[in-house]
């Protein structure tokens, strides 16, 4: 059985969303045009994700199987309303910057994914560690993408001028296509790094998982099922 520490640290690198666990891409693409927005969005997600994980884990035996999704969403929605009101009270400029994406945390795949995949099967203290780790990992990622896009696209980082007046900002990066391209290049870099690391350690990468799935440990238990399916397909192709 994994310890609390392991559940916490897996969200920081091994399954870091959204680079390894490619979930919750809507805010990743939409609000990361500056590092500050990324950080603020990440903080909101930490709050919602940790609390929703704990609450769902507490009530996991009370909710009937058939209506569990509705239950998870209702819990997440109440937490998001709380965050929204807190932000309106204490961080109004940030709230205005993030706009519609704060309410949209309700339908963020990470919240539901962790609720369904982890919190509904594990005791509260594990769910707390998982939610906190995933939330912090998400914040790190968002701030990372945000700082890349902001420094190239506006020449600033957290509002501080970086390159001096002769720099012509690469506006493309702070606009919508820049988000897709920077996320794609970061994902490619992560896969390249995983392959390089595996080669250096002499580990054979499982060829049954394509490059995107190799690095992520989220569905390690599914390997057998996937292998079985592939074998069946091979055999049916031969006959």
């Amino acid at each position, binding site marked *: 059985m994994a310890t609390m520490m392991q559940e916490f640290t897996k969200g920081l690198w091994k399954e870091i969303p959204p680079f390894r666990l490619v979930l919750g891409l809507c805010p990743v693409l939409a609000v990361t045009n500056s590092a500050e927005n990324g950080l603020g969005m990440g903080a909101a997600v930490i709050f919602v994700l940790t609390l929703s994980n704990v609450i769902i884990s507490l009530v996991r035996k009370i909710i009937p199987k058939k209506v569990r999704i509705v239950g998870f969403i209702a819990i997440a929605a109440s937490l998001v309303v709380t965050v929204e009101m807190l932000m309106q009270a204490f961080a109004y400029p940030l709230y205005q910057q993030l706009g519609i994406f704060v309410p949209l945390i309700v339908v963020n795949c990470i919240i539901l994914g962790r609720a369904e995949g982890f919190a509904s099967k594990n005791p509260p203290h594990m769910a707390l560690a998982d939610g906190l780790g995933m939330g912090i990992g998400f914040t790190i990622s968002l701030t990372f993408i945000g700082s890349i896009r902001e420094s190239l696209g506006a020449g600033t980082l957290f509002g501080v001028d970086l390159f001096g007046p002769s720099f012509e900002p*690469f506006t*493309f990066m702070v606009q919508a296509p820049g988000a897709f391209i920077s996320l794609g290049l970061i994902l490619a870099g992560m896969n390249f790094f995983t392959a390089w690391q595996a080669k250096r350690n002499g580990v054979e990468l499982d*060829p049954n998982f394509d490059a995107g799935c190799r690095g992520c440990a989220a569905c390690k238990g599914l390997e057998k099922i996937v292998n079985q399916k592939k074998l069946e397909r091979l055999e049916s192709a031969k006959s």
Partner: protein
Amino acid sequence: MASQEMSQKLFTVSSAPLWHSGRTVRLTMIMTLLALLPAAFMAFFKYGYGAVEVIAWAGLTAVATEFAVQRLMKQKPTGDDFSALVDGVLFAFLLPSTAPIWLVVIGSALTIILGRMVFGGYGGSPVCAPALGWCILTISWPDFMDLNAMLLNWDLVEPLSELKYFGLDAVAAISPVSLLFGDNLGALGASQVLAVILGGVILIGMRHVRWLIPVTFLAGVFVAGLVFNILDPEAYAPPVFHLLTGSTMLAAFFLMPYPSASPSRQIPMMIFGFFGGVLVIIVRSYGIYPDGVPFAILLINLCTPLFEMIAPKPFGGR
């Protein structure tokens, strides 16, 4: 490895004695470069050494970037088939001749990296790489890509910007013949209309480019321009104006038939070309940039897989 096992399925190509047609990527690319030469000469005579400088930097950066990325991806270097050079030169043809060197270098490198190498190299790209490079630069640095502002030393005007910002009256005096001879400002190579047509016709004559896409593209521009013109002759320019300005001709002969980004069957090619042309007029009429040809090309490139689905049914198939 399982993936290798799966790819061992053999495909029937044809019965045994096969004959190589002699056509290679390299030959096509060399012919394309030769076909671009007249326009490059015209650009040199009109804009001086600046034009040559831009073309040279763009071509050099394209080849060097491709080599570097191929080293990184552990691919076989393919600089000797000249496809990267062609992409770089085509990209340079869309720039103003006074573009600063850093702009040319960044744009050309992005053309190769984001337009080709991220998709696996030449032949894997779903979009026209030079058009993509132009679009990124235009979104990022609109001031440096503004042809009118960049070419202030010349007394001529850029017809599409005039049309966009000052209305149809501003361009009413420009005759089609002067447009044909490139007697106006424009992108470095794309505005040398006659020379581009000459190169394109040579390429089609030697069958390196199939005639369907250019012809249907020009027909699309003409028909859509005519429809707009008939609907409101006081707001929209006549179709011939659209055919001879901006990069329409370069797009028709060199960018639209971009090998991996255009369909390969006749009916899909006709639809692809025609709607590409219609999109040009739509983007020019409603878009915020004066010349929308590369945007139209990228949009229609993304529809190519849909057009490719129009295929003849196999006998007995469903």
